[in-house]
């Protein structure tokens, strides 16, 4: 097993332990378990970072060339953004929602073929890597928007029902969830926009067509439109709360489809 693989599995183990502890933390409310969750996730993140470094060293290019690589990078970016959020807000409940997703993304990556794809000459170049990295980081931010949106809807339902149950006590306040939601959106949207722009330039440059009207590009533009709408509604029309959360969830489903679904439809090619 290549060394980058070893660290990748180690990272996955860290994330799995993190997930378990975040869930246990919610159930038990014990601070020590919460801390353990953070440490496990941090350790996983460290291993994951090493895994990327080794792969970059082996490939002599960014690890963004195959579906496995981008999924792995996606998971890594989510963890990075989540950890920053946890340190800033001091809330670990979000982790119980984010980390399972990370494990899912990581396991999906692990199940994919990991041989090193030979990339054609058209699929090289700094511009392309920038495009992919931006898109993945933007989408990772949206993953957080998605999770907090989901939590918002759960908490809002609890409050609206007027019979708040166990979940209610454990979930953070609506205010906090909305705040994380809007901040992650504000972080992710410019990245996605830049990704679209760089992607288009690259397409123009390599294929001579500025607006590819098929496949992934179409879906990307669709999800960009949804996030643009969401941002506009939030900033100008004062949209917030439940509707914003629902839109964030729909937007992220599209993102996932764009990233994974389309690739699978096209037989595992990412680019």
């Amino acid at each position, binding site marked *: 097993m290549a060394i980058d693989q070893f660290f990748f599995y180690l990272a996955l183990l860290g994330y799995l332990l993190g997930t378990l502890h975040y869930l246990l933390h919610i159930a038990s409310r014990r601070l020590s378990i919460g801390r353990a969750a953070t440490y496990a996730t941090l350790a996983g993140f460290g291993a994951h970072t090493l895994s990327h470094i080794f792969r970059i060293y082996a490939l002599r290019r960014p690890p963004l060339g195959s579906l496995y690589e981008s999924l792995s990078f996606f998971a890594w970016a989510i963890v990075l953004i989540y950890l920053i959020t946890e340190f800033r807000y001091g809330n670990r409940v979000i982790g119980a929602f984010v980390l399972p997703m990370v494990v899912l993304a990581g396991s999906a990556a692990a199940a994919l073929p990991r041989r090193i794809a030979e990339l054609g000459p058209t699929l090289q170049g700094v511009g392309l890597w920038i495009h992919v990295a931006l898109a993945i980081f933007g989408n990772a931010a949206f993953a957080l928007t998605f999770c907090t949106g989901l939590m918002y809807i759960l908490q809002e339902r609890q409050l609206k029902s*007027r*019979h708040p149950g166990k979940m*209610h006590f454990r979930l*953070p*306040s*609506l*205010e906090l969830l909305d*705040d994380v939601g809007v901040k992650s959106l504000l972080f992710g949207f410019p990245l996605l926009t830049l990704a679209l722009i760089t992607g288009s330039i690259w397409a123009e440059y390599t294929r001579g067509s500025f607006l590819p009207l098929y496949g992934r590009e179409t879906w990307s533009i669709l999800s960009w439109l949804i996030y643009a709408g969401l941002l506009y509604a939030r900033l100008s029309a004062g949209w*917030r709360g439940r509707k914003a959360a629902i839109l964030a969830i729909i937007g992220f489903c599209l993102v996932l489809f764009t990233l994974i679904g389309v690739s699978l439809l096209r037989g595992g090619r990412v680019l």
Partner: protein
Amino acid sequence: MEILVVGLSHKTAPIELRERLYVAEADLPKPLEMLGESTDLVERMLVATCNRVEVYAAADGAVQKAVEGITDCLATYRNVPKADFLDKLYTYTAGEAVRHVFRVASSLDSMVVGEPQILGQVKTAYSIAQAREATGMILTNLMEQAFHVAKRVRSETGIATSAVSVSSAAVELARKIFGDLAGRSVLIIGAGEMAELALRHLLDDGVRSVLVANRSYDRAVALAQQFHGRAVTFEAFRQEMVSADIVISSTAAPHVILKKEDMQAIIQQRRHRPIFLIDIAHPRDIDPACNEVDNVYLYDIDDLQAVVASNLQERAGEAERAEAIIEREVGVYLNWLRSLDVVPTIVSLRERVEEIRDAELQKAMGRLGDLTPEQREAIAAMSRAMVNKILHQPMTELKRRAAHQEGPRYTTVLRRLFGLDPSPDIRRGTGASATPKVLRIGTRASVLALWQAKHVAARLQAAWPDANVSFVAMKTAGDKIQQVALSQVGGKALWVQSMEEALLDGRIDLIVHSMKDVPTDLPHGLTIAAVTEREDPRDVLISRSGLTLAELPPGAALGTSSLRRQAQILHRRPDLRMVVLRGNVHTRVRKLDAGELDAIIVAAAGIKRLGLSERITEYFSPDVCLPAIGQGVLGIEIRAEDSVTARAVAVLDHRETHRVILAERAFLRRLGGGCQVPVAAHGQVEGDSIRLKGLVASLDGKTIIEGEVAGPMTDPEALGASLADHLLEHGAAPILEELFGRPTSGGPHEAYD
């Protein structure tokens, strides 16, 4: 000794009966005193709240009799016929009693499980009993453990986290909507007790601006003033809702004052910022359909009550986890209780082996001749290591066994194998007529005092197998102290006074004292008949971080109970912060562990007896911290004319130590007898003479007047007095004059520890 709980609570008795037996907090001392007088309970405390009346006690002897005494007492005090509550009474002993006390303190036995008041009530009840010296080792440890368990339950379970009153439920919901409530604004429509209560809760949580709308503008102004808010006209409340975050509505309107359409318009103007509506009016003020509007959260009084009900259920679930914690803690406590019995054996075993080590070491050193200090230290270290290694296994095993039923058997065997009980040869030559038949030992009911008494009892019993040796753990007479502050009763601890009275009355035959607690002037008719061989007289430092005195960082907090230690330590380390420390050794160590202090200084002997010697960080040689007069020595006080007991306790007397003690005490007497002064002295036998070191220090440790004399063992008292005179001439006099704000004599010269 049996731990006993007798009482009734909301679970067994109706409110009418509880009211009839209720004792207000201020009245607690009275029934407590009655319990002391009319029962044989060694230790007792009374917990009385509107939900429970309970007596926690430690009883010697028949439980049934103790229970009867308690019931009689309750019945007499509140004048309630026994028949009225006898069938409502529960009695717990041993493990069940411990469990019950833990559950009560942790609020698991409360009517509203998890309510926080009960812990405070139990703490108060305990301190009232403690102030009246109605508690001793058993209850002290039980209660301290109970408070620890309560804290654990509170932090590790959600038993107390959710709101169980309507107004606190409202605040909690507001927090789940807005997160931090700081800077939020609240609008009150109408008025009412409930509204004000909720408002108060919200203000406590940081809500800043308060708006009041009322049909009567004057009323609005009055209420607004009360809460530093602003009054608005009633008609304007809808406009105000555009900016307010929380609305409490409580008008007497016969129909709704806010419809869904109004709310939709308002939320538009609010740009969908969430709003929390609390409708506590009857009939309701706000159309329930308002809750359908996005970002509007409407709760009426029924909803809030439902929240409270479900929170209570949630607490019940958490209570199960709490029960599990308690179950574990009860086990730990019972094991500890059983293990206590082996502590004296462990200590004597260690002492015996240390004795051998010391003697052999001295012999070897003498034979080895010139050695460098390093070589000496290496040999000493080797002997210590051997002793520790040999003792480790039997000690751990004994401690482990102690937790089970077979503990006593192991101790007996061990005592016999190592010859830990003194041989009966000492009896040779005593006439049969003088053989003591009854030896009643008076002791204070603290762990250390009990250990000392047990130790003395064991030696006496071994020397006088036919005598009936028994303990009388003193219940100090509460009636004498009511008008006088505890510390001022004749400058003497109460328990000393009451034990000496018992001795003079013939209720007991001897008192076991720590010599350093014994005042220089004894009451007429009493005498110190025997003094045991000195144990380790040194003071020791126990630091949390393992740092020695020299290594402690500047400003570190050091706890000690005695001015003597304080002054001497400040002399070396004026940068340390001294904290007055009270309570028994366990309490002090716990305070250290709790992080309140960086280090504590205590007597080595006490720490060793309690089996805590592994906690010691540093031993202070007499050069660093000269011990107190009589430190490490037990003294036996008897009636001066009681020749039978005098003969009996003569087996305990260690002649050389006795001489040294006479010298030390003469030194102290000449210096003014006592009161809380930083005075220290330590004597040692060298051949046929005694070398006595002494010092007087100023409170801040800046000035220390010290001196040393040596003289023949035949006249120790003259020796002590001469050293005192020497110090007085060389600067001790002004220090003492300054300290003696009030002339006293005969007081204790060291805090009781």
